[in-house]
């Protein structure tokens, strides 16, 4: 790379160096196999896979998705083929890909998380893990994400089980997201991603009940949550030194750069992938071009340095 040129690489730690900061968010890209047939996924910064659980899951009854103003609610229920299948079958494809694959792992207790990590640790082609401690759509999905002590204990146990890069996906459905971020950093997380979906509800007046089944709630994503996600990234950035992966409502290059201003080191594009399968690649190209035009050497030069809070 010539002197003065924009360096897009992002070091998440433990040898997990992303070629660029534009990744795709868990739950919006499967394991890459559908998108592989539609676009050149190898150029992406990273694929954060669908949440993967100890055993296969069929997912929740429909309806599972509902659109809202500028957003989308989902209650998929972590439908996935289970960690053994991912480790045995999918990882063989991952190993042939240039794009780093970070497997998102979701489980109900510490032992299950550690079990998943041990199974995946024996598989090739996995650049790291994203611990999903923030799924709003399954029983116990949020247990670890809401409590800094529980989150710290979980990360301590998982940290002891792997040398691979460990990203922890934070829940926004907490009073103090910074406290959870600090706890997982102290416990050995290499990076955090902020944030998962916000618990939301859509009501259908005609049937006088929520559109989504069960408790009637789902996870809200899309442009509607971008200001909330930016605020969460800024709070987390102020609380930790490890890299922060920003996620929430990103749809274009300006959104990406705004997350860098708020304190992100990398980003994930989520719901926008559903509306346009090539959006992440287009955004990547635009981010690179805009960064060059701005004369940046690293996108983190955009970072806002907040004034100290008055006493």
């Amino acid at each position, binding site marked *: 790379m010539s002197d003065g040129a924009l360096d897009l690489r992002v070091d998440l730690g433990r040898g997990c160096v992303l070629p660029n900061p534009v990744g795709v968010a868990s739950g919006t890209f499967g394991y890459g196999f559908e*998108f592989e047939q539609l676009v050149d996924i190898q150029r992406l910064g990273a694929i954060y896979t*669908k949440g993967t659980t100890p055993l296969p899951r069929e997912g929740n009854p*429909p*309806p599972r*998705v509902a*659109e809202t103003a500028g957003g989308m609610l989902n209650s*998929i229920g972590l439908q996935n083929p289970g960690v053994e299948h991912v480790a045995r079958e999918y990882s063989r494809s991952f190993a042939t890909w240039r794009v780093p694959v970070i497997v998102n792992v979701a489980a109900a207790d510490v032992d299950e998380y550690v079990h998943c990590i041990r199974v995946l640790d024996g598989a090739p082609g996995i650049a790291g893990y994203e611990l999903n401690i923030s799924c709003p759509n399954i029983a116990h999905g949020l247990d670890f994400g809401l409590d800094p002590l529980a989150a710290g204990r979980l990360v301590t146990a998982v940290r002891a089980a792997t040398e691979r890069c460990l990203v922890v996906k934070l829940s926004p459905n907490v009073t103090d997201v910074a406290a959870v971020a600090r706890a997982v950093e102290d416990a050995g997380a290499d990076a955090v991603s902020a944030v998962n979906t916000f618990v939301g509800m859509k009501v259908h007046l005609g049937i006088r009940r929520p*559109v989504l089944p069960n408790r009637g709630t789902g996870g809200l994503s899309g442009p509607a949550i971008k200001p909330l996600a930016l605020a969460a990234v800024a709070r987390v950035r102020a609380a930790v030194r490890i890299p922060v992966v920003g996620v929430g409502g990103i749809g274009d290059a300006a959104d990406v750069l705004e997350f860098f201003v708020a304190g992100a080191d990398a980003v994930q594009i989520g719901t926008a992938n559903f509306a346009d399968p090539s959006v992440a690649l287009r955004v990547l190209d635009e981010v690179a071009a805009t960064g060059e035009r701005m004369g940046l050497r690293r996108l983190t030069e955009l970072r806002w340095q907040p004034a100290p809070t008055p006493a």
Partner: protein
Amino acid sequence: MSDLRRARDETGAVIAVEELGGGLVELIAHLPHLAATARAGEFAQLRCGPGPVPLLRRPFSVAWIDGEHCSFVFERVGVGTRLLAAMRPGDLLTSLGPLGTGFTLSPSLRRVVCVAGGLGCAPFPLLAAQAVALGIPDVVVLHGAATAARLYPRERFTRGLTGVQVVEATDDGTRGHHGLVVELIGAALGGGLDAVYACGPNPMLAATARVLHGGAAVPDIREVSLEAPMGCGFGTCLGCALPVHRDGGTAWALCCREGPVMHMDAVDWDALRALPPAHVA
């Protein structure tokens, strides 16, 4: 499972937006890839407007192909279809397609019947044309709607082709058979059939499946086109789950990949009946 490699994102000009009466709208757009590749029963994900509302694309069956033009039939049920209906010639429409699993057609079939309830008419103009092109000599379209004004115009099923016959039914008796379209299936079966294809509201599809369950005159090819609230349309969001029979129990199948067309006997009709209609989401 549908082959996503056939799908392509393309943007083309709207040619016309036609009011068909009774609230039905047919939108015609210049979409050469879709026109060259779509098979009856497959769909396209259409971007309905430039802004964040609606955020997601909407799935529409390809209703008709003429050269490089494709048409879609819908009514104004939400923000997406209202925006589509408000498009004018020259506006740009973005389409990802063809997507999904379509109807089973083959040159060995001699007589096929389409059962179309209301907007379930959408896939059948193209099916009739592709059936005729394959040399299937006898295509019958049974088309029902609440009232005559809401029937898709019969000449748009036939489009001047010989061998395509349309039989109509209305709930209020304003045209054709006074009653449900499903009541017309028995007479059609009498002539001997090689395939039945159905599209329409879930209760109509369930009734069609019941009429065709068992019996000597029932053909092997008995297919329904279903719908479900969809996020992506290509199997990634896992949002469009439908209940199907699998391994002796009920499992979820994705409407967008395993469907929208499935064998009638694969669908768990009891479980489907318990779900809210797709438009609720």
